[in-house]
């Protein structure tokens, strides 16, 4: 109470220092009157607005700045004043009527500051009694006295004032802290606070803007308003580095000088403040006297005290058993009885890990393990995964691009090979967890299946066949080329002696060649394309059947032994027409004399184009195939009797080719997909062979008569063993393109096939007498020579009757002999 009274007393004792100053503005005006002229205001104008002569700046470039320091205050006084005056003058020009520039005001200001110090002193004198720090007081006094000494009657810089004021304020605050902490001085605080709030001191430069971010005032010359509502101007803070440095070097208190943001002035911290800061930095309490480790008073100690803590008698309820508890206990008992609550499990003391496989039974494999498919191990890394792989394993730019564009599942590598110069540079692999996770997924989610990996040597897959060398003879090289035709050579036939060759071509000629010399012996022009030629297989008869357009010509080539072909002519001439005229599907005509000289003896005129003509092995009968849809597609003619008949009553499809069995009275008819074998004696169907082909092109029968080969346009060659099955014994797909013709050799176990791809493949086709042994088929030679023309290659192949020679005729208008 006494202290409070004292405080109040001091307040009352404090003289109202400057009533005149207070009169200038409303006492607590937050918004001062704008543009109000103030004496000191001009000093805070930006320097650029001072129309200072350059000379001055040169003489004393830091003049204004230096004036900030108290130490140079006096020596710079004069210049400063002059400068101020000049500035005032300048300002006067601008705002003439409003400005009241006079040095008197300045002096008045100085007076004010003096008064302030006085008043403050008086205040402190009041506090000194309550035991405040003396050193700060002294310092303040020092400063004051210094100020008084040096600046008597001169201008005290605003900054100095502000600093002093703030210092005092700090002191006050500091003191208030102390007084708070000290119980004895507890009463001092309200006193000081009261005084501070009440301060009507003119020079108390306290900012009234409140707790706002000070950068709001960044663009203004002032930082806020004092209690009188006057602007508080920013001090001129244009210290450059040099100034700062000088300050640092010369000011012993530089380290304890901080800037007050609210007023913008530099404040020198007092010793207490410094100590406070240091204490806080150390993490100690701000108050020196606070003891955080005070001995604890143990109220409820183990020692029984004589006196009870409370003297209240025990409640009645402490003697009566609690109903609530009883209920709870009974509930628990019930729960235990019912087995709802189980006692705590005894701790298991078995070790976590032990020898699990102590009694190992290798036979204890469970039933399910039979189907167990162990997970495959992860692939081991290759060179490309190295952190420093050989350069060839790094991807080039294009490969990288391709890698990035590929889908993740399609990539061969699931990472991009990288090269690092040293181990230090290797970063973490970003997809490590991903990869482990994917492995986990694979292990439990991926369906497993045992895949039998064929681990065979490819050489073992190749069938072990007898060497072609051991299967000789067979044609290997091209021996002769028969040139002369101008169109593609469609068909070939050879005389039974093997001396003469006949060929029919699209250029409308039939040519007779000598086999050994490749000489064209005779050319027989016919009208139209020659579809088929067939030399009579009977060596005693010299006749060639030629299918041209709608007729079949029987030609006597007049080659070789004159007796022989003369005999043939005689046989033909000796024909006597039968007495009764029989109905025939064709008309037989004897060739006219012009044609007779060329060799044509008989003409069998069919009503329709003839596709093929073939002789019976005895040489009397010949069969012709017509391009027709009806049942008269096949006709069988008897040359000696000039008699023809149509053997079939019904059509079974388009007939491709026909063939007589070499030994028995059988007749092969190939339609598009089937080959039918008719017994001519019994006149019935003996067998129907399923070729498995789309379109049969040609067929040939083995000279023994039990095997048949069948070429088709869908590149297949089917070998039928007639005794075995109606399905092919072997299907060969050797050619790339459609097969045009196939042929068997009369004596050697050879057969050949010619195809549109221009090649002739000669195969060894051995048929054994032993019925149990299957025929052996070995391809022995691929003969090439014909140049494909108009998508056609080899059109006909033919074996020499006695030699292992092969003739082939092609679309390139040549006939070639391979030997």
């Amino acid at each position, binding site marked *: 109470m006494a202290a409070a009274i004292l405080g109040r007393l001091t307040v009352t004792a404090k003289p109202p220092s400057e009533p005149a100053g207070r009169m200038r503005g409303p006492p607590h005006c937050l918004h001062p009157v704008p543009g109000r002229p103030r004496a000191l205001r001009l000093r805070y104008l930006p320097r650029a607005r001072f129309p200072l002569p350059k000379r001055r700046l040169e003489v004393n470039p830091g003049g204004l700045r230096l004036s900030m320091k108290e130490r140079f205050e006096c020596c710079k006084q004069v210049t400063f004043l002059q400068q101020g005056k000049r500035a005032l003058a300048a300002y006067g020009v601008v705002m003439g009527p409003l400005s009241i520039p006079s040095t008197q005001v300045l002096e008045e200001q100085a007076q004010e500051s003096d008064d302030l110090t006085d008043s403050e002193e008086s205040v402190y004198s009041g506090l000194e009694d309550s035991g405040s720090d003396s050193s700060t007081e002294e310092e303040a006094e020092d400063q004051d006295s210094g100020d008084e000494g040096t600046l008597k009657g001169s201008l005290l810089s605003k900054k100095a004032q502000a600093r002093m004021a703030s210092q005092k304020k700090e002191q006050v605050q500091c003191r208030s802290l102390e007084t708070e902490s000290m119980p004895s001085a507890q009463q001092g605080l309200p006193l000081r606070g009261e005084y501070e709030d009440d301060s009507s001191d003119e020079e108390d430069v306290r900012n009234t803007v409140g707790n706002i971010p000070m950068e709001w005032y960044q663009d203004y010359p002032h930082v806020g308003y004092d209690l009188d509502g006057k602007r508080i101007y920013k001090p001129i803070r244009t210290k450059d580095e040099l100034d700062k440095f000088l300050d640092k070097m010369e000011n012993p208190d530089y380290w304890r000088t901080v800037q007050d943001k609210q007023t913008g002035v530099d404040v020198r911290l007092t010793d207490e403040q410094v100590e406070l800061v240091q204490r806080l930095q150390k993490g100690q309490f701000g108050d020196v006297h606070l003891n955080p480790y005070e001995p604890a008073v143990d109220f409820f100690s183990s020692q029984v005290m004589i006196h009870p803590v409370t003297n209240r008698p025990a409640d009645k309820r402490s003697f009566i058993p609690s109903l609530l508890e009883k209920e709870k206990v009974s509930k628990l008992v019930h729960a235990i009885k019912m087995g709802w*609550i*189980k006692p*705590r*499990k005894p701790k298991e003391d078995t070790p*976590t890990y*032990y020898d699990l*496989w102590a009694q*190992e*039974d290798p036979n204890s494999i*469970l*039933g*399910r393990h039979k189907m167990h*498919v*162990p997970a495959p191990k*992860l692939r*081991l*890394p*290759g*060179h490309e*995964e*190295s*952190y*420093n792989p*050989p*350069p*060839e*394993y790094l991807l*080039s730019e294009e490969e990288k691009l391709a890698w990035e564009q590929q889908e993740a599942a399609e990539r061969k590598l699931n*990472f991009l090979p990288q090269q690092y110069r*040293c*181990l230090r540079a290797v970063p*973490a*692999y970003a997809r*490590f*967890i*991903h990869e*482990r*996770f994917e*492995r*986990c997924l694979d*292990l*439990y*989610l991926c369906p*497993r*299946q045992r895949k039998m990996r*064929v681990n*065979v040597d*490819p050489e073992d*897959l*190749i*069938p072990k*066949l007898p*060497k072609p060398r051991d299967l000789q003879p067979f044609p290997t090289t091209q021996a002769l080329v028969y040139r002369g035709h101008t169109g593609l050579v469609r068909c070939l036939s050879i005389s039974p002696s093997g001396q003469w060759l006949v060929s029919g071509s699209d250029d409308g000629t039939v040519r007779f060649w000598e086999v050994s010399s490749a000489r064209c012996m005779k050319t027989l022009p016919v009208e139209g394309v020659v579809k088929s030629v067939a030399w009579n297989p009977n060596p005693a008869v010299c006749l060639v059947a030629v299918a041209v357009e709608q007729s079949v010509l029987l030609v006597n080539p007049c080659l070789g032994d004159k007796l022989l072909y003369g005999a043939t002519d005689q046989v033909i001439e000796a024909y006597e027409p039968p007495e009764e005229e029989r109905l025939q599907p064709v008309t037989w005509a004897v060739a006219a004399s012009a044609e007779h000289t060329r060799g044509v003896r008989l003409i069998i005129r069919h009503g329709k184009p003839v596709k093929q003509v073939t002789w019976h092995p005895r040489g009397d009968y010949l069969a012709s195939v017509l391009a027709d849809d009806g049942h008269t597609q096949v006709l069988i003619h008897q040359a000696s009797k000039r008699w023809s008949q149509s053997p079939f009553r019904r059509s079974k499809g388009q007939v491709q080719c026909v063939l007589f069995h070499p030994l028995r009275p059988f007749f092969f008819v190939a339609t598009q997909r089937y080959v039918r074998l008719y017994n001519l004696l019994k006149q019935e169907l003996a067998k129907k062979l399923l070729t498995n082909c789309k379109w049969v092109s040609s067929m040939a029968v083995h000279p023994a008569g039990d095997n048949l080969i069948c070429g088709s346009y869908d590149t297949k060659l089917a070998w039928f063993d007639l005794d075995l099955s109606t399905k092919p014994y072997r299907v*060969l*797909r*050797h050619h790339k393109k459609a097969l045009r013709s196939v042929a068997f050799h009369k004596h050697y176990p050879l057969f050949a096939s010619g195809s549109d791809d221009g090649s002739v*493949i000669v195969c060894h086709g051995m048929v054994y007498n032993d019925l149990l042994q299957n025929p052996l088929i*070995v*391809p022995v030679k*691929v003969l090439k020579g014909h140049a494909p023309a108009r998508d056609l290659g080899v059109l006909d192949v033919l074996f020499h009757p006695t030699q292992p020679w092969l003739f082939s005729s092609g679309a390139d208008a040549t006939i070639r002999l391979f030997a």
Partner: protein
Amino acid sequence: MGGLEKKKYERGSATNYITRNKARKKLQLSLADFRRLCILKGIYPHEPKHKKKVNKGSTAARTFYLLKDIKFLLHEPIVNKFREYKVFVRKLRKAYGKSEWNTVERLKDNKPSYKLDHIIKERYPTFIDALRDLDDALSMCFLFATFPRTGKCHVQTIQLCRRLTMEFLNYVIASRSLRKVFLSIKGIYYQAEVLGQPITWIAPYAFAHDHPTDVDYRVMATFTEFYTTLLGFVNFRLYQSLNLHYPPKIEGQAEAEQKPEEGQAYAMDSESYMEKLSALSASLARVVAPNPEDEVQVDEFPVDGESVEQEEARKKEQEAVEKQKKLFEGLRFFLNREVPREPIAFIIRCFGGRVSWDKSVCIGATYDVRDPTITHQIVDRPSLEKQVIGRYYLQPQWVFDSVNAKMCLPVADYFPGVLLPPHLSPFVSEKDGDYIPPEKLKLLALQRGENPAEESGEEEEDDSDEDDDDDEGSEGEEHSEKEDEGKLKKLEEQRSQGKKLPVKVSVGTVRLEDKQRSAQEEQSEEKRLAIMMMKKREKYLYQKIMFGKKRKVREATRLAEKRKAHDAATKSEKKTKKVRRE
């Protein structure tokens, strides 16, 4: 015929398989529990041979389990534990909701738990089976051991993984069974041979993980649960086989326990022990002290059907392995602090070397940098200011390459700051026809005892000769010329030895060539004809195989060409540099 009509899908493969959903319903488990059960029991879907038959005519994509597997799961005691756990969680939630803390505590005390021992015994009836399946377990545990102790999984799991992996590494050190190591961009691969089984695992580089969001950690955690149990049992057995204590004890620990060590200053007792173990610098204590006299000389029995050559090869291989085990014996290494300590210390210790590091890097350092007995210092920085004479300063790759080469490689290529030779994978064994990088060829030659460095050195010498001034160059050239002459003579001698009969070269040789060629042609044609005669299926297979072979060849030639181009490029670069310098 008679009899009842047979219904479809009531016999045969359709009844042997069961879809996943049906299996789940049969087991009365949620999908998560089913998944967990499948992971723990090692049940996986099977791909039926005829999917459509199994799928009852439908072609929808379904996963099928073997019905037998699912029936087998029905009797699994763990299924009941899962259910118990579910009940426990429900009770606990209820108690929490009612704030009955006593109940919560009581429930937590009685938390149902399960053990996986019987499952491991069941899945791996013999120890060898377990070893065979250890790859994934180790990789997973090594990954989990590097996880941060936050969030992703239980801290106990991480610690357990760390402990188990360290134990395994210590076993590998003690048994010296490491065979191959490989620094890949993904991590470090190790291959050890334990009881004749190759075990490969990968450990990630020691970096923080960037945890991906599209990974289900529950699945991984379930796997890890199983793997840790497996690894624990395997470790126990392995330690037992070497007469080592399990849990491992550091040799000479008895004395160490009496006096407090500096390590205990910053770590708890048990932790520091674990740390010391994981430092991999101390050897382990044995139950029975090893007696060198006890080492039984293994009698050798010739295996039937094994030729002498094979036997010799086997012997040689064994010898090589024995030699490799003692690769770093007698060498003392020091690891600089920038070197990844754990892998390299592990590798060096596996081959009998002694290793230390800076005391501040990790506990367990045995000697200082200044130790004069250090023979190799592993450094991974471009240059070193202070170098001590008497030891090699090498990059870490040297250790890895030496282990893979089964011999201490020449050090010159591995000095700090030097451009390292490529690091090759030891897991690739090239068959003939595959591409072999030239570095590998060099290495193979080194292993055979040849010194390819001579030739290459000569080349370099030549290069340097060109670089250097004339006087030195002339000397070198003379030297090389002499060598060349010697070589030529040798070659000639060899030639003359090879030809015992003086055969005159005549015109006939040309024909001989022709004959060979024609024979070759004939053969190839034979082959072509034989291929024509192949059956369709075999032909398809043959063509597939041949296609694969051709692809391989193509790949090899591609690599070879790339290498050639690269070499040419580097050479030309060198030349231009030289020209510029001049």
